[in-house]
């Protein structure tokens, strides 16, 4: 058993209104970042978990996302990183 640090990104599903992302995009435009096309504001979670190998640590965090960390109705998630903790 080793300890792994799994980072996960959770973002509002594309196509759904993300007012926070829109407000940030508008602010960036007003600062002159005119290349900005879209911003989505989500959450970044870092989870330390014991698992026999990195693949199973990732699998467990995917399960966590499906059951609690992300709302399947409105959010998408992706595993950003898995490393030895």
């Amino acid at each position: 058993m080793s300890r792994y640090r799994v980072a996960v990104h959770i973002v509002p599903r594309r196509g759904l209104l993300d007012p926070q992302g829109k407000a940030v995009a508008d602010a960036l435009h007003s600062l002159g970042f005119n290349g900005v096309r879209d911003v989505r504001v989500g959450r970044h979670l870092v989870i330390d978990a014991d698992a026999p190998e990195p693949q199973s640590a990732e699998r467990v965090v995917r399960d966590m996302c499906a059951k609690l960390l992300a709302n399947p109705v409105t959010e998408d998630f992706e595993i950003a990183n898995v490393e030895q903790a």
Partner: protein
Amino acid sequence: MKFGVITFPGSNSDEDAFLAITDVLGQEGVKLWHKDHDLRGVDVVILPGGFSYGDYLRAGAIARFSPIMREVVAHADRGAPVVGICNGFQIACEAGLLPGALLRNASLQFVSELCRVRVETTETRFSNQYAPGQILRLPIAHGDGRYTADDATLDRLEQNGQVVFRYVNAKGETDPLADPNGSMRGIAGIVNERGNVLGLMPHPERAAEAIVGSADGVALFESLLAQVGV
């Protein structure tokens, strides 16, 4: 009729709901704690408004794991009535008792005002004491009230008559400007397919006496009483 009001850490409308039931309606109220494992024989469960668990992660996401929610889900599965108000609506969605989700208001602002909703159906056990199309004045107070679901779910809700309340303007028409949080199709309240779980963002329990600005919420509770002829 026995109404149980559940207090979660962070609930703030539990006393209002309790007073509406007991003082205004003269019914029996039971205060339940989120750690209880027993609904103590209540006929109706009320999930009240507030900010359970500080809205951590997502509004209602953590409350659904409170011990008593197991009993609430079993109560709903038996076909018994559950009313989720504001945060209670969010909890009911997170617990899978109702379809969809409630997201951050489109304006990004917390809204606290007396809104107008239209009664879209009187064929539910929560709305049978209203007139069809009746316009109600009910207070809202939330930051995460934007009802969201995919098109197929929204179509199904409409076809089945599960949309109970919709935000409208002073003329009683749906209007994006009268939709205080950007809810899809102006939806303010829905029931599940079986018709025994209601979720709504407006606060009927805070509109129970004219002296506080509106008594339009009372008929929602009276509808439940009429159902059983109490």
